[in-house]
Each structure stands twice: as C-alpha cells, then as structure tokens.
C-alpha cells in the first residue's frame, strides 16, 4: 500500500502530538510524587552514614521523614567555612536542595557545601555527628556518598556510598555495608592535627585495624577504590575550614 506524502506527514504529526501529550501529561501528574521519592532517597542516604542499612530498611517512609526532621539539622557553608544563606543570584539556599553533583562541576572555591548535623532529639546543640557529602569519579562514572564525623571532627562515625555505573560485583561493592563499615573508627586527621584523610589500600583481606588512616581495599576494583580515596581527601580538604572553625568553637567553649 503506497500512501501519499501528505498522508504520511499528517499521520506522523498526529501521532507525535498524541504521544507527546501523553508523555508530558504523565510527567506533569507524577512529578510531585517523583520529587518526594527523590528527596526521601537523599534523606535515606544521609541517614545511612549514621545508621545501619537494616534499621533504615525496617522504617516506613513516614518514619524516616519524621526521624530526619527531628534529628537532622542542616546548613550550607562555603570553602572558607562561612555559613551561606543565599547563592550568588540571591536566592536562599537549603542544604537539602543543594545538588552536590552540579556543584562538583564548579571550581572548589565556588561550590556550596552542605553540612548535615545529626543531633539528639529536639536539641540541635547536642551534636552526635557531622554528615558531609562527598562526590567524585569512579572507574566508569560518578560516585558519591556521605561521610559522618564524630564530634572530635576526625573520627569517622560511618560512611555511605552510591555510584552511577561501577562494575557489579567489583567497584559496585562500595555500596555494600560490609565495605562501608571498614571506614568506621578511622580518623582523617593525625595526632598533630594535619589532614591525612583515609585511603583504601591495594589488595584485599589485610588487617589495618592498627592504622587509623588505612582501609582494606577492593580486590579487582583498585580504580574505584582510588576514586573513593580521592573523593574523600578532596572533600575533607574543602571542608577543612569549616571543621577548623568548629574545633575552635569547641575549644572556646571548653575554656
């Protein structure tokens, strides 16, 4: 059957319009639900740095929201460690909506750095841990995560990592709690107070429990592990000014 050009064009136009309307309609209807799901996912990741994954899995969505609201305070700082209220255009910033991935593309001095403060229920002064987002490159694509520091601002309380496209079973293992728990208890500063960060070593299965800056590596995923190291080191240096401020505040409070 041979149709005229006019028929082909009319058919294509009508089809495009119908499908287009269908898609934009669905997207419009679902957007608020998707946004909520995305926010909840971010909250889960943030809480993942200070809670066991099984605990989070057993919580209902509303419970996570409520827990997050009562236990997490947030602010945004710049590279100097100063609190930022609004971005360059003058729009107010909110730590939950700062896109760390987008900021990663800017120069470190121009980025916004969110800080999430895990505190006792209802009392923001009683800090349990500072949760800092980190972002970097793995082997194939971006990796990111949250790193929780105890109130000494050096000891790691916990970490959580995610990735966009690391190899399943190799680099993708950074998302497993078994790998993430290896970071717990390590310190990013040495006794003299200079930044050492923590780094995953080459090879796997060795015991680094007596070295506070070394973490057992990922066999077969050295590049991903190095990406994790670089990511943590660079972000800890970007947050250093803020961390130092916090340390000074604490010393003044003690004296």
């Amino acid at each position, binding site marked *: 059957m041979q149709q005229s050009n006019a028929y*082909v064009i009319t*058919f294509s136009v009508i089809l495009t319009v119908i499908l287009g309307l269908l898609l934009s309609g*669905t997207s419009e209807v*679902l957007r608020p639900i998707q946004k909520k799901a995305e926010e*909840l996912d971010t909250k889960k990741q943030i809480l993942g740095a200070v809670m066991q994954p099984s605990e989070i899995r057993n919580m209902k969505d509303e419970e996570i929201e409520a827990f997050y609201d009562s236990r997490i305070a947030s602010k945004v700082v710049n590279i100097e460690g100063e609190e930022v209220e609004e971005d360059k255009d003058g729009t107010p910033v909110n730590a939950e909506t700062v896109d760390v991935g987008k900021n990663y593309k800017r120069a470190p001095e121009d980025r916004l750095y969110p800080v999430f403060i895990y505190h006792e229920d209802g009392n923001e002064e009683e800090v349990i841990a500072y949760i800092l987002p980190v972002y970097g490159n793995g082997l194939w694509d971006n990796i990111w995560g949250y790193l929780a520091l105890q109130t000494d601002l050096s000891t790691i309380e916990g970490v959580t990592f995610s990735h966009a496209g690391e190899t399943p079973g190799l680099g993708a293992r950074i998302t497993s709690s078994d790998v993430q728990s290896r970071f717990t208890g390590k310190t990013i500063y040495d006794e003299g107070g200079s930044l050492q960060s923590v780094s995953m070593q080459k090879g796997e299965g060795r015991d680094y429990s007596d070295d506070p800056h070394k973490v057992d590596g990922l066999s077969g995923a050295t590049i991903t592990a190095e990406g994790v190291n670089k990511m943590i080191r660079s972000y800890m240096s970007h947050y250093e000014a803020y961390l130092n401020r916090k340390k000074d505040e604490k010393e003044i409070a003690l004296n």
Partner: protein
Amino acid sequence: MSTETAEKKEEIKKDAEALLSKRRKKLISDPLVDDNPITIQVLGICSALAVTTQMQPTLVMALSVIFVMVMANLTISLLRDKIPTRVRIIVQLAVIATLVTLVNEVLKAFAFDMYKELSVFVGLIITNCIVMGRLEAFALGNKPYDSVLDGFGSALGYSWIILAVAFFRELWGSGSLFGVPIFDAVSGIFGEDFQLATNGLMVTPVGAFIILGLIIWVQRTKTGYVEH
C-alpha cells in the same frame, strides 16, 4: 504461572473458540519453549545479561517488558491499517519509546529504589529486538486480540528465561534469593563449620553467559532443536 493456566482452562470451557482457541493458545505457548525469543531466536540477550544479577530487579524488568510488549502490540495492531508503510519502523519506535518512558516515570514515582537500579536497562527495552520483532512480524498483520496474546507469550518466554538465569546467579553469586540470605540460613542449620562459598563469577556478565548457555543446552537436548 500455574494459576494462569488454570484460569485459561476455565475460560476455554465458557467460550472455547472465541477466547482461546487452539491456535490462540499456541500464540502464548510457542514462545515459552519451542520458539523462545532468547534461547531459540537469541534476541534480547543484552538485557538478559545485564539485569539478572538479582531476582527482584529481574522481576521488575520482566513485568515492564510484558507491559510494554502487550501494549505496543495492541497499539500497532489497532493502527495497522492506518500506519503508512514507509514510516512504520519509526511509528513502532515512537510507540515503544513512549511506553518505555511511561514505565520509567511510574517506577521513578512509586519504586524509586528499583528506578535507580534499573533505569538504564528499562530504557534499553526500546532497543530490545524482541519487542520490535513482534511488532514487525505479527502485530502489523494480525487482529488486536491475537496480537495481545502474541506479545504476552513472547514477553513471558523472555521473562521466564531471565528469571531462571537470575535465580541461579543470585543463589550462587550472592547466596541469596530476593535478597533473603539462603546460604547463611543453610549454614545456620548445619552449624558454623558448614559454610557455602559464593562464586564471584556469577555476579559478572560472564556468569549469565554460562547459565544461559546451560539452559539452551538442556533445552535443545530435550526438544531436539537444531539450527539450520
């Protein structure tokens, strides 16, 4: 699947010729074994390798493919007299892409964890040769109801294979099924000394090739199918 066959039998009693005649039943049953899209036609291999490390994402993928294939076959079959021959491939692609995007959007809204894990692969349903193959070979020349059955059968043939592959890959690779640690439970029964080791090979795509190869081998030995 057993409940489905039971339902079908009931329907046959009520309305044998119209709803599920022998010919129509063959539309569903043929792609399951004798003309399976993966093991016989060797289509849709890429997604079969990629998503099958765990049962749960595989199940979501299977359901998505069933939805997309049934709806795409229905749409194309309804439009089959209207679609201009010269642009039919693009029309098919547009319909498939729309359906796949819908699935992706729904997953993003209601199953965000699955969306994160699967979004790339759900998008790849568009290029899954099975879907377009059925549109081109069947839906363009058959009535809507037959096309729906055909799409359902082919998608089911795809689904049970990827679920079978995922079953062995998750069991042997991660020692669990649907995330439930089976190997640990087994060790629990026999005591601490009895440990089942997981095989890292199963987690990589190589594992899927091996399992798939074994399934094809067993199947062809049984059916006596030989490639010509």
